[in-house]
Structure formats: structure tokens, C-alpha cells
């Protein structure tokens, strides 16, 4: 009995004037797995906590199912919202055994103690921890704690499941395994799920719908494919993984409504055809290039747009990933290659219109959000948070 979720103009101003939420509105259909993606400070945690009822909105409305749980007059306490939640730190009660932690969530069903423990036991089996039922949280590993927290959230079969960056405290390998587990367990349960993360890989892998938050505002909402192929802003593009950015200027109109651009700082072999991400394209513009939008060719091949030199090669098992430096020092990363290329090798780059989007250049302040494309969407299994870790000025116009 998954519930529909509607959020209207949610706003939250903390004492002291910090606007954590600036009125995002959206609706989530029953049974949908929705991921809210955003960097720290984007308001995603506040929004999630407001959905849970832990945080009180200063304006706007939240409706779960048929019930308005929060508006100007109402603030339904968390326990009356019929939801469950996986906390970032798991928030397992240290004095309760694993099974009792889970059984606690069944209190609202008013089961007998025996029945509750039995259901909790079954749930624990499903997350593969049947043998650890009597352990205290401190006696469990990080992954085991995570599973217990997940089991606790799933056991009561609530209509709405909230997940607060549940994978952020796990190592890369475990993270990937738990992601798959969460995906399958949650979809089995069929609950409407709101999942927040700052990791676009996690977002794309899990979501039916992805919402991107920036500064308390919902800047894009759509399927993962929509967001990836048609980012609504340079910020969204950057945050969802780029090979690199080029400072460009528009030079003409291309086919199928695309536009033609040329780099500002150095010559190119021929104009680049790119999709227009946002209008108006006057003055300085930025070409955001997805890793999937770059193809290698010979440096003197006809099809080439740009020429650069390989500065790094990473073996990724199935293939190689190259980093290529362009003449002005701009770096393109995560470029797929079938062959190893030694450092310094000259290569040609072809930019596909499907993976190249041009935006008006964002004001200086927004550059802080610049998420380096290095890593990019093509790098499955990359370490958590690397989108931010490698935050370096890629192709900032001079």
C-alpha cells in the first residue's frame, strides 16, 4: 500500500535566517523510487527530515497519501505519518539487540511480542543476518549495522520509506553490494521511497525519478535518462558527471535545433555541434561534455573536433579511461578507449551532440559547485564522493 507523496512550496528558514529550503514542489507516484540528489547544503537532508516530521517546515505543504501531514496549521508528529527511515548513522539503539531494534518498528502494528519478534526474525533472514539476531549493534560490522537499519525500515511495511544517505558510511565494495540489496529489497516491498544522496552514480543506479537540489531549490526532476541527457542547468550537468567543460562561443545553427560552437582559447578543426541546455546563448558560454559524448580518433582524422595530449591512462578492466589535456590546459577526463595510450600521445577528440550541452556561463559564485567531470558516468565502481574530491577547475574560461 504504497502512498503518493506531494510536496508543495516547502520552505524552511532556520533561526538566524539560513534558508535551507526555498519552496521546492513535486509529486511522487505510489511505488516510485525517487532519489533527491544534491551537494551538501542543498537542502536535501532538511527536506527528508521535514518529510519524516523531525523537522518542522516554516512554509508549504506535505501530503502523504490522503493525509496532509504538514502545512501552515498542521504538523503531524513523525509517529503518525506511517513512514520509516534509514538513517545515515543507522541510529540503532545501542541497548537493544538487532532483533529488538527491528521489532520496535512493528509496535505500531500492535503485534504480540512473539509475533513481532517472529516477523523481525524473518526480516533479519531476508537481509542475511538471521544468525546475528541476538547481537547488540556494537557487536556488528558496519555493513551488518546497515542491514539491520534497513530491515528495521522495511519490516513495518509502511507506505513511505525515507533513506538518508544510507550508503555513505560504507566502503566502496560494500556500498555497491548494499546498493543492489537496497534496490531489490525496496522494490520487493513496493513502498514509495525517497532516497537522498550526493552521489550521482548511486542516484542513477537506484532511481525511477531523480530530483536535483541546489541551494534549497529543486532545479530538475525527471528520469535518470532525462537528467543525464538533458541537464536543466550547468550546475545539474556538472553535478551529474562531466568529462570536462570548455569555454566556447556560439558560431552558428546546427541540425535538429542544435547549435554550433567553437572554443574560446584555441582553434578547433571544425565547429562543434551541441544541444542547447539553456537560453539565452549570448556572450560567454560553457560546453559541458559527458564522458559518453567524447570519442577518440586519430589526431589528424577528418572527424576530429579537437586535438590534445594524453596525460593519464587508467585500466578499467573492460577498457581504458584516458585523460586528455587540450591546448589551453583544459582537461577532458573519463574518455573511453580500447587501447592503452602512453603519456604525451597526441589524440583527436570527436564530440557527439548527444553528450555535449551548451549553457550560458554561470556567475562566478556558482563555479564553486563545479563538479569535475573526471570520474564521470562511465566509471562504474568509482569511489564514493569522488565527484567532489576531484573538484578542480576544469576548463574555467580565462
Amino acid at each position, binding site marked *: 500500500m504504497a502512498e503518493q507523496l506531494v510536496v508543495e512550496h516547502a520552505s524552511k528558514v532556520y*533561526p538566524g535566517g539560513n534558508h535551507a529550503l526555498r519552496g521546492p514542489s513535486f509529486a511522487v507516484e505510489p511505488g516510485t523510487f525517487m532519489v533527491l540528489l544534491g551537494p551538501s547544503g542543498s537542502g536535501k537532508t532538511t527536506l527528508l*527530515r521535514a518529510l*519524516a*516530521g*523531525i523537522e*518542522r517546515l516554516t512554509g508549504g505543504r506535505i501530503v502523504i497519501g490522503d493525509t496532509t501531514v504538514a502545512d501552515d496549521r498542521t504538523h503531524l*508528529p*513523525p*509517529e503518525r505519518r*506511517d*513512514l*520509516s*527511515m534509514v*538513517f*545515515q*548513522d543507522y*541510529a*540503532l*539503539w*545501542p*541497548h537493544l539487540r538487532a532483533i529488538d531494534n527491528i521489532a*520496535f*518498528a512493528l*509496535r*505500531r502494528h500492535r503485534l504480540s511480542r512473539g509475533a513481532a519478534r517472529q516477523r523481525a526474525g524473518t526480516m533479519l533472514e531476508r537481509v542475511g543476518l538471521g544468525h546475528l539476531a541476538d547481537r*547488540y*549493534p*556494537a*557487536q556488528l560490522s558496519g555493513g551488518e549495522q546497515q542491514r539491520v537499519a534497513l530491515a*528495521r*525500515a522495511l519490516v*513495518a511495511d509502511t507506505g513511505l520509506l*525515507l533513506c538518508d544517505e544510507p550508503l555513505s*558510511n560504507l566502503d566502496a565494495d560494500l556500498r555497491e553490494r548494499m546498493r543492489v540489496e537496497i534496490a531489490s529489497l525496496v522494490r520487493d516491498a513496493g513502498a514509495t521511497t525517497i532516497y537522498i544522496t550526493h552521489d550521482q552514480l548511486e542516484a542513477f543506479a537506484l532511481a525511477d525519478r531523480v530530483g536535483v537540489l541546489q541551494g534549497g531549490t529543486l532545479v530538475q526532476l525527471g528520469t535518470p535518462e532525462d537528467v543525464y541527457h538533458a541537464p536543466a542547468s550547468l550546475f545539474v550537468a556538472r553535478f551529474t558527471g562531466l568529462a570536462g567543460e570548455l569555454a566556447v562561443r556560439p558560431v552558428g545553427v546546427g541540425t535538429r535545433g542544435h547549435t554550433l560552437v567553437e572554443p574560446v582559447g584555441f582553434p578547433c578543426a571544425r565547429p562543434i555541434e551541441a544541444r542547447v541546455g539553456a537560453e539565452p546563448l549570448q556572450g560567454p558560454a560553457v560546453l559541458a561534455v559527458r564522458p559518453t559524448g567524447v570519442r577518440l580518433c586519430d589526431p589528424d582524422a577528418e572527424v576530429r573536433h579537437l586535438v590534445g595530449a594524453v596525460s593519464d591512462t587508467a585500466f578499467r578492466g573492460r577498457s581504458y579511461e584516458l585523460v586528455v589535456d587540450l591546448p589551453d590546459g583544459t582537461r577532458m577526463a573519463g574518455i573511453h578507449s580500447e587501447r592503452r595510450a602512453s603519456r604525451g600521445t597526441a589524440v583527436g577528440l570527436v564530440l557527439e551532440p548527444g553528450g555535449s550541452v551548451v549553457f550560458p556561463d554561470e556567475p562566478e559564485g556558482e563555479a564553486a559547485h563545479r563538479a569535475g567531470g573526471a570520474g564521470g558516468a562511465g566509471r562504474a565502481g568509482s569511489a564514493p564522493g569522488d565527484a567532489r574530491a576531484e573538484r578542480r577547475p576544469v576548463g574555467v574560461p580565462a
Partner: protein
Amino acid sequence: MTIADAVPDAGAAPGTPRAGGETGPGTRRRGPGRALVLDRWRAWTGSSRLGRVLRPTLWGLVALFILAPCACFLVISVSPRLFDQGPQWFTLSYLRTIFTGATAVSVVNSLWVSGGAAAIGLAIGLPVAWLAGRTTLPGRRVVGLGMWLVLIVPSWLPAVGWERLVVKDGVLDRVGLGSVALQHAVMGPFGVVLLLGIRCVPFTYLTVTASLAGLGQELEDAARVHGASRMAALRLVLPILAPAIWSALAIGFAETVSDFGVADTLAYQSHFPLATYQLYQAIGNFPPSFPGAAAIGVILVASVAVPLVLQARALRGRAYAVLSGRTRQAVRRQLSPLGTAVAAVGVGGFFLVAIGAPTVGAVTGSLLADLGASARITGANYAAFLHQAGASGPFVRSLAYGAVTASVTVVGGFLAARMLSRQRTRATHLLDFLLLAAVALPGVVFAAGYIFAYNLPFFSTLGINLYQTTTLLVIGYTASSLPTNARVLVGPVSQVQPSLHDAARAHGAGALRAFGRGVLPAISRPLLMAWLYTFCGIFLELPISQLLYSPGSPPLSVSIQNNLSTYHYGLGMAQSVIAVCIALLVVSIALLAYRLLTPAGWRRIGATIRG
């Protein structure tokens, strides 16, 4: 300057003497030997060798200064001859007396009164701690200070205050509020339990506040999200405070069992004999019956097994380490207007009773002329105090004793608390019992035990004459404060996850630095509290001071007691009031200094944010 500031930055060149080494023993050395000593010290502290050395040392000190004196005293109950206190080498006759007659009655009274008082302390202290720590209770900032006042005031003062209020022709009678029923209620078992219970409130308040500080918000949030109402969430989360709660109960019980201030005043006046009174009487009679007193001491020690067994059962096998870097600051709950009113009245009422009564006692004792016969207020007693030659000597002395004792005790108490909270082995269970048993022993037992143990002729032939030296006095103070300290610190220390220390070690800090940077900030507040508690306790400590002080240098309490017990009751009361004010001043200054001088991050731990 704070301790963290005193620790040098990482990356000091290897081999150069670091400021961090200032705490080591090599600091007094100068010249080429210094670096070597420092190295050795670092080598010591930089490995588990520290633990290997520290643990036996701590045990040794506990054995030498806590166990030996107490054992010397208690053993007299079965073997008076051992210390020239009777003809028998072995006898059970003294132990038998505690099961007969007036002594048996007083022992039974003491046991149930202590249990009741500890329970009252919990019942009041827990909600007050929660209200002050987690809600928008008006005046919450002064609650802590008020608790300190309750703690600092010697227990006889409120007892006298209550008496002065309710006795025939007492204060309430004079203002037309007196009633026989009230007199009977206060001057009887009920009044005694209530008064001692109120004295237990700060124990609960302080331990629970420290623990609440480490209790992140998520645990409550998680309960609410999974369907628990506010109360149900509270009920779920409260057991996480179990170590603190049990600690408070055990201490409350032990402190009450050993209290003499109330036993000697309100309980005595109410014809409600308590065991400590009987014990003092056995010693105070002439010639004193040390074996009789020791027999009562034995039963007091044995009685702490009760809360300990309960505690062990309640906490068995669980880990409570919840305080870590990820702990989210708790949100202060906005109380409704009605809730605010109820809470404020409740908390205010508590302080009115707990602090108002001693104030009455002090005022009628020190400010009223002709010993309170009229309501004429006079400053004569304070003037007399100021004109007394050398009046400040005892104050200064006791300030110094308090400061030294508190400093030593907090270090020892922390180490003991760490042992108690880390490994639950047989040895630590034993240590736990021994420490609490020591709390349950009245100060006079400690003091007399010290005389027996450290005044053996054997020592004098070795040229060691410790008895009636300041050294032994301070050791006695420390030994008597350490048990309570260790117990109070177990709560907060058990919440510190080992990772905090390990993380600092992993990032290149030596053991001391790891402690200073990684652990100390997390427990700095409880440590400060423990220091202040010890300081205040020693500042006004009486029985040990009386029996062990170095002739010629009377501590404050001896000076006060000499006035109170002779012809200068008003002067003694005035001294007491001044002493309590000074103690409170020290507490205020220390708390203010902590607020102003420590890095902001230290104070964040346990702080709350407005929701």
C-alpha cells in the same frame, strides 16, 4: 590556555623536546639529560606499555590508600587485639551486635532510607536533567548552578533549616503556617528520606546530564519515525542512559548510607536512628568502641552489594558507546505554555525546598540576633568573623587542599573509570565493588583507618611519620574522593568510543596527545564537573580533617566545627555561609572559565540547538 592549546602541533621535528612532554616527569631536568628522559617517557606512553604500567600502579594505589586503611579499620570488628582495641584476637561478638537491639534497627533504617533516597534522587533528577538539557525550560541555565549549590551545602545545613522551619515556635509557626502534621511529617522517617533524597538529586542530574550530552538526536528521531510517540521514544531512549542512571542510583545509595550530617541532626532529632549515627556514637563514646563501630562499617560495606548486583544484572553484556564524531546535536524541545508552567513550577519547587531550607537554617543561625529568638537581623556574627585574627588561614588552606585533591582525584578517577568502562573482567567487577564500598563508608572510618594503617609503630621505626602531616591528610582526602569520582565518570567515559582515541593515534599522536586531542574534549565537561564536585566536597570535609589534620594548620571545616560545637554557633554558621558562597564562587568561576577558554568544539559536545 586549554589543554588542547598546550599540545604542540603535529610535525614537530622528531627528537626535539615537545611541549607535550611538559606533563612528563622529565621536565624538572635541564640540560642534555632532558631529551633522553623525554624519549623514555614518550616510549612509555607511546605504547600499550602505558597500560601495562598504569593498571598495576592504579591497583597498587587503590590497595595502599583505600583498601588498606578501610581493611585495617574493618578488621577490628573481628580482631580488636590487632590494634590494641581489645583483648580478643578473634571474636564475632561485635558483628553479632549489629543484628540486635538499637543497632539492628538503625541498620535496617539506613538500608531502606538509602534505597528510598536514591530512588527519590532519580525520580526528581532525571526529569530535571531532561528538562534543563533538552527543552526550552525557562531558567534552565541556572539549574546546573542550583544543583551545585545543593551538592555543595553540607547535609546538616538543610537538616537544621528544615528543623528550624517546622519545630514548635519555629519559623513557620511564627508566620502562622506551622502545623503539627507538617512537623510530624518532616521530623520523622519521611522527612529524613526526602531530605537525603534531595541530596541525591544532583548525583542523578550530573551523571544524566553528562550522558544526555552524548545521546544524539537520531536515536530519538529513529524511534519517532518508526511509530513511537514522544513518550514512547523517551522510554526507548532512556535505557541508553542506563549506565548513568545505575551509576547515580549506586552512588546515591552509597552516599546516603554513609551520610552523617542528616543522621546527626534531623534524623537524631526525629528519634529515627541511622547506622552512621550509631557508628559515630560507638567512636564518640568514651572510651570509644572501635570494634563496635567497625562492625557497623562492615554492614555498610556489605550493603552496597545490593545496588551493584542490580546494576550488574541490568547492564550485563551491553555496550553503550554512543558518543562519536557522528553524533548529531540534539534539538531543544519547545515546551507548550502549559508544559512550561508545569515544568517551571516543578523545578522551582524543588529548588525552593532544596535550597530554601538551608537558607532558612543559615539565616536563622547566622543573621538573626539572640540565636533566632526574635526576627532582628544582625551582622554581628559576620563582623565577629571578620575581626577574628587569622580567620582567612583555614579558608586558604582548605582552598588549596581542595584544589590539589580535586586535581589528583580527577586524574585517578578518570583512569579508574576507564578501566571500569572498558573491560568487564573479574578484576574490574572487584574494583567496582571496592570503590562503591568505599563510598559507603563514612568519612570517620576512612580517617580512623588511616590512623590505624599509617600510624603503626613499625612505620615510626622506619622513620616514616605520616600521621598528622598534610601529606597524609591530602592522601586521605584523595582516597575518600576517588571512589565517588570514578563512579561518576564511568557514565561519560563509557560513552566515548575507542575510535576517538584510536583516530588520534592513527593520525600520528602519541598516547598523551591522542588523549588530549581525541578524548579529552569529549569528556572535558564531566571531568570539570568531577573536579568541582571533589573540590567542594573537600573544601568542607569534616571527619577526615578532624582526625588527620596537621596540628597548627586547621582546615576550614575544623575551624567551623569548633565554633559550632562550642559557644560560637552563630559565628560557625556565618563561617559556613561564607564557605558555601566561596565554594559556589569557585564553581561559577570555573564554569565561566570553561565557557570562555575552551575551544568552541569542546563545548559543542552535549550542547543543543534550538529546534
